[in-house]
């Protein structure tokens, strides 16, 4: 039987709460009207009614299905509107789309996560997932960098992780203020501090393009193989269905073949860092 589902129609989701994470970043708590679930690392198309739609990776735990959280940086036309929304309105959700993190391949390994800026949003969803399967992992290390202490999102997350068995979380800022007593420098500088058995580990990188590039270079210098590094690629997917062409990265549709790739899969394409 043919599938007559309309792939372009979003499901409605009520915005129940808006959490201010930093001056430019807010988390939107949404309760979908229809059944909705996702795997960590997959993305959704989130729309403001009549304004526009943009791709985001949910930042909440995939294990919670009655609501979902999306962390959004105010950085363009659609996100400017999103930041004006108040609880009670409806937003549109399409998805989930793409290939997320293959967490089952992380079993028995040490997981190093390198994140920057708003890249912590998809990572938080991954961390929730890893916490739920921590018995199967050796350890999880998070290295996160933000521009300033004020730009650092999910502050309580770090204390919680540091008090969780098998988890370590480190923070750094590019530019400190008077109250900051932590590390200063870009996210990759944190990699010098950690102890990890590279041979039995995987690395996950998610953040702005420049951090993804230099993070990957640093991981390779440390001895990671190309296929041990997982990258979450960022493109302006319009349809999320492998059709509209906006997210083509070489022969890949980032929305279908990714957004999570190993460096090995995409390294032949010189345009990945652009």
């Amino acid at each position, binding site marked *: 039987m*043919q*599938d*007559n*589902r*309309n*792939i*372009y*129609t*979003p499901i*409605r989701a009520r915005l129940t709460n808006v959490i201010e994470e930093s001056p430019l970043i807010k988390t939107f708590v949404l309760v979908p009207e229809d059944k909705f679930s996702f795997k960590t690392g997959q993305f959704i198309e989130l*729309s*403001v*009614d*009549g*304004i*526009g*739609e*943009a791709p985001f990776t949910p930042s909440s735990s995939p294990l919670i299905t009655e609501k979902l959280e999306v962390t959004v*940086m105010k*950085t*363009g036309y*659609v*996100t400017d509107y999103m930041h004006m929304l108040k609880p009670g309105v409806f937003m*549109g959700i399409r998805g989930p789309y793409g290939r997320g993190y293959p967490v089952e391949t992380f079993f028995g390994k040490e997981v190093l996560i390198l994140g920057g800026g708003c890249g912590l949003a998809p990572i938080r969803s991954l961390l929730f997932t890893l916490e739920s399967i921590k018995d199967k992992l050796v350890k999880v290390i998070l290295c996160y960098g933000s521009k300033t202490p004020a730009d650092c999102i999910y502050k309580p997350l770090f204390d919680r992780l540091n008090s969780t068995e098998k988890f370590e979380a480190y923070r750094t800022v590019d530019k400190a203020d008077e109250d900051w007593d932590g590390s200063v420098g870009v996210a990759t500088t944190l990699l010098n501090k950690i102890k990890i058995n590279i041979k039995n580990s995987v690395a996950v990188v998610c953040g*702005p*393009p420049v951090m993804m590039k230099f993070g990957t270079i640093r991981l390779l210098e440390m001895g990671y193989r190309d296929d041990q590094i997982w990258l979450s690629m*960022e*493109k*302006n997917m*319009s*349809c999320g*269905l*492998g*059709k*509209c*062409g*906006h997210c*083509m990265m*070489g*022969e*890949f*549709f980032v929305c279908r073949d990714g957004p999570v790739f190993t460096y090995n899969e995409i390294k032949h394409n010189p*345009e990945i860092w*652009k």
Partner: protein
Amino acid sequence: MQYKSIKKEEWDKTVEQLLLSYSIFACVENEYGLDYEFIRPADVKKISYNKPKPSTPLKSFFLPVKENVTSEKVEKMPRIIMGIPNCDIEGLCLLDDIYLDKEFNDVFYRKRRENTLLIASDCFGIQEHCHCSSYNIKPFSENHADLAVINLNGTIVLRILSLKGEDFIKTIPAILSPGDNDSISAIAKEHLATETLLTKSNNGLPDYKITGELITTAKEDIWEKYSASCVSCGACTTICPTCTCFLLIDKPGFEKIKQMDACQYPGFERVAGGEDVLFELRNRFRNRYMCKYVWKPEKFNSIACTGCGRCIDACIGKINKNELFMELVK
């Protein structure tokens, strides 16, 4: 392959009768050249057969420039598109790969496909920029269409190419005779003549076996040179039978408008922070070649250029991609 034949006058009467139950689009010569037109009874005699090639690519019947993809559409009359050159039939295969994909099939595209009978037309002769044979495409359809139509000196010969075509033939009230050997060999002769013209006209043009490598290894200056007169108008992508990129635009009520888009337009790949991989004109220009000759062949196992040559005809900057390839192969 099965052939049926019918006298031209009988065929015209049949088409007129078919107009009662089908919307028919067929090739008609007008003051601007050859193109598909909506056929009314008075137009049946004006239908042009076997002449290459309608200005509009076949994709326009399946991918409207703009459509609301969240509202239900009323089923219209079944449709016949007649006189389709094989380059367009082959181009449709790539569109099918994209839009009829198992996981996410586009119900609007699929309903149009199911609702349409494709009658191909063997090309007798070539247009100035026709070069299908360089990309391993024949100037006549042997599969992927439902029927092919040939006008042989007053006799219409139909080549049956699909079950749908075969079933359609059974519903035609007119009496069709089996295709005779003389007609079949006359058609073969025409095919050979057209293929000879194509070979002659495209002598030295790199073929599909090496286009991918030529594009991948092309030096930066070739893109600079050939994009110099490009004004990013998108005519090449609009007219291309396989360019299918689009943008979803939101309307109140969570409605989505799907509008054709193109990598040749500035801002196509711009992301929210303002970064744009295709900001530079030469990069946008190169992107189209990479897509057609390298990426799409890798992803879908079919070249995304059918050699129709419409992009050359349409370019107001007079950019000729065949000249670019000839320069690359030097």
